[in-house]
């Protein structure tokens, strides 16, 4: 980078470069850093796993304890509470309606206040169906308070204005919808916890004394998704196949790529055409490549056509079936060799261009054979390029996806990225899918680190 060695502004900070890189920094943080963290969170954090119990039927009252999702609880009492503004309606939300009424209390005075709908019988409504007048219900149960309390605000937590006798005529001035809260009791470990929770988190199972915690309001760290990933019956086969493919593909690919690069670098007449042909595959999608090789390996495909044309077989062989997994592996291997070698080749050629021509010519003049030139000059000087190519190629190999889907139908042999896709798309489980994604990331990081380490140790030994 000779052009970069031109410092601008030696004494004060030059802000221009920072302004220039700012947009890309922001973009990468937004669409790279942040989703990465989200992915990690998805994989190890279970949302709404715990439900917080309050000591009173109010959002801000002290916490009585927490119970896990899915637990059976007893419902002891119910009470209506205002829904906090801006909260979306949720699954099991139970509501009750309260009316603002005006009427005479037990002392004969006219009072105004709120009372639940269950204590008021609506007698008159206006044209829209809004209730306008009614009477206080009589309470039949002997244990219940025969008088109906009137509150200053909707909700039993507010102060009582007064009490009304049954059958008192009231005007209905206003109404409000409240969420029902339950006083629940459940056992966490050996400890019994009792407290108030909004009904939206509870499935009452049709009766008013029993319920199940459907959903919590706090998240917690969990290894559940990772366990589910590891215990999935496709996990180990997918990991095995992915690693096997990497071991099979990468060494062969590097040999082929170096040969291709040597052909290009020999600068024969027409090496431009060679370069174009060799590089074509760089621009072909893995899906298209999968289809190309499917046309060769399918039962009525080109491979069988050729073999039959040569008289080697009489009936078409089935390659891509569950009984012939090794053939699928071979097909995937060939397809990946065909598709991704170009990438390695380009990096290797770029590295070779940096090797000085004089060194190679000198070696040739002094009679070094091609193999000696490769072994003692080209390969050592190519090491940085090869290292980068190795890292890039391995990380890409961890993501091999469409080729495998096309050639195996997606389940005869499977790879990690295919499982990520299956968990997300077919099983609709984005948490386990995120666990797979994080796992692929970890593997990529470990291998990159290993490559960097391995090459450095070699250099240290050599130096």
């Amino acid at each position, binding site marked *: 980078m000779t*052009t*970069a060695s*031109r410092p*601008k502004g030696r004494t004060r900070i*030059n802000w221009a*470069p*920072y302004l*220039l*890189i700012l947009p*890309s*920094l922001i*973009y*990468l943080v937004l*669409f*790279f850093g942040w989703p990465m963290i*989200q*992915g990690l969170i*998805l994989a190890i954090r279970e949302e709404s796993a715990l439900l917080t119990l309050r000591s009173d039927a109010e959002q801000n009252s002290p916490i009585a304890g927490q119970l896990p999702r899915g637990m059976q609880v007893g419902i002891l009492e119910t009470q209506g509470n205002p829904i906090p503004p801006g909260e979306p309606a949720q699954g099991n939300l139970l509501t009750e309606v309260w009316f603002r009424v005006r009427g005479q209390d037990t002392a004969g005075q006219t009072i105004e206040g709120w009372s639940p709908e269950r204590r008021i019988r609506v007698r008159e409504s206006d044209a829209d169906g809004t209730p306008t007048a009614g009477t206080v219900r009589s309470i039949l149960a002997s244990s219940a308070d025969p008088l109906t309390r009137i509150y200053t605000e909707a909700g039993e937590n507010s102060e009582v204005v007064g009490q009304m006798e049954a059958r008192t005529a009231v005007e209905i001035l206003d109404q409000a919808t409240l969420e029902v809260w339950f006083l629940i009791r459940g056992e966490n470990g050996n400890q019994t916890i009792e407290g108030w929770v909004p009904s939206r988190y509870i499935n009452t199972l049709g009766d008013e004394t029993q319920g199940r915690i459907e959903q919590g309001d706090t998240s917690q760290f969990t290894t559940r998704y990772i366990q589910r990933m590891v215990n999935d019956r496709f996990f180990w086969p997918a990991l095995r196949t992915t690693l096997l493919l990497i071991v099979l593909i990468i060494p062969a690919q590097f040999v*082929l790529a170096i*040969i*291709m690069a040597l*052909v290009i670098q020999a600068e*024969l007449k027409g090496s431009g055409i*060679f370069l174009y042909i*060799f*590089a074509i*595959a760089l*621009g072909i*999608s*893995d*899906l*298209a490549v999968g289809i190309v090789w499917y*046309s060769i390996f*399918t039962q*009525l495909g080109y491979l*069988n*056509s050729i073999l*039959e*044309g040569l008289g080697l077989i009489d009936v078409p062989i089935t390659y891509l079936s569950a009984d012939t997994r090794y053939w699928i592996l071979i097909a995937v291997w060939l397809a990946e060799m*065909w598709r991704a070698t170009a*990438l390695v080749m*380009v*990096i290797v*050629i*770029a*590295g070779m*261009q940096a090797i000085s021509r004089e060194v190679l010519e000198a070696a040739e*003049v002094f009679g070094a054979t091609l193999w000696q030139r490769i072994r003692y000059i080209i390969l050592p000087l190519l090491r940085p390029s090869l*290292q*980068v190519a190795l890292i890039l190629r391995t990380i890409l190999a961890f993501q091999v*996806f*469409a080729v495998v889907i096309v050639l195996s139908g*997606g389940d005869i042999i499977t790879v990690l990225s295919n499982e*990520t896709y299956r968990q997300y*798309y077919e099983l609709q489980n*984005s948490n386990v899918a995120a666990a797979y*994604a994080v796992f*692929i*990331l970890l593997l*990529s990081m470990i291998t990159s680190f290993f490559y960097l380490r391995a090459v450095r140790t070699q250099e240290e030994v050599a130096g």
Partner: protein
Amino acid sequence: MTSAVDMQSKVVQVSPEVKAIHRRLKRRQSINRALTYLVGILISLWVLIPILFITSMALTTPAEVRSYPKGILPFIPLSTETMEFFLNSRGILPGLRNSVIVAVITLSLSTLIAAPAGYALSRFIFRGRDVFRLSILAVRAFPIVILSIPLAVVFLRAGIYDSVYSLALMHTALALPTTILVLSSVFSSIPYELEEAAMVFGCSPLQAFRYVVLPLVMPGIAASAIFTFVLSWNEVFAATILTIQNRTLPAQVLVTLNQSSEPYQFAGGFFMMIPALIFIYFIRRYLFNMWGQISK
């Protein structure tokens, strides 16, 4: 390589032994050249024959596609029937439109965002430059799958799931690191002296950039944009995860693969390959700019 040997033989008074060595060297060189050609042609065949196969399948009649043994193109009837059948299948034309929209947005957005950063990397030395460069390299070598899943969840919550625009945002993130590195190498190939000269003659830095640098880097920027287009056009994993109704072409083909006939599959494979066949030809000289950068 020959020239060095030739010069030697002219300068030195040649003895028969030297002549013999010279002849041997010459012979070895021509054998080497012939061998190199042979290897080059073999590898070319390895690349081209599968392409010939899929092309034959796509450009013939569906009846020919289903026949066995399969033939290749000059020997089987040429027909647009299979391609027409594919292009008229459900979801293909909308998918094609979506693919083009996503790719065009991706290449515009990534070029717009990456060009300033590439310029900064090539022209300025600033504190944090190496860190920025290294993190770009690290991001470049990052598995994309990890991003699709959380982005899908985030997009779903934000209500922009299943849209070509949000997919383009994702593809831009994917293409950005490479684009920055490529553009920085493209800018580096233009000597700073040109800009300086323009400024000496009274241009402002912006004018110098606009009238001197920009015309020179346009081909490089175009090559990088084409590469971004191909990248987005080919991308299938994120496209399948992030869209449901508005699928791009590869996503549509992948999802319907199991229920589709062979003519459909082969025509689809060929169709998706066309941009690669055309564009790689135009940008082949820039490929080393693109990938060579990374190893520096």
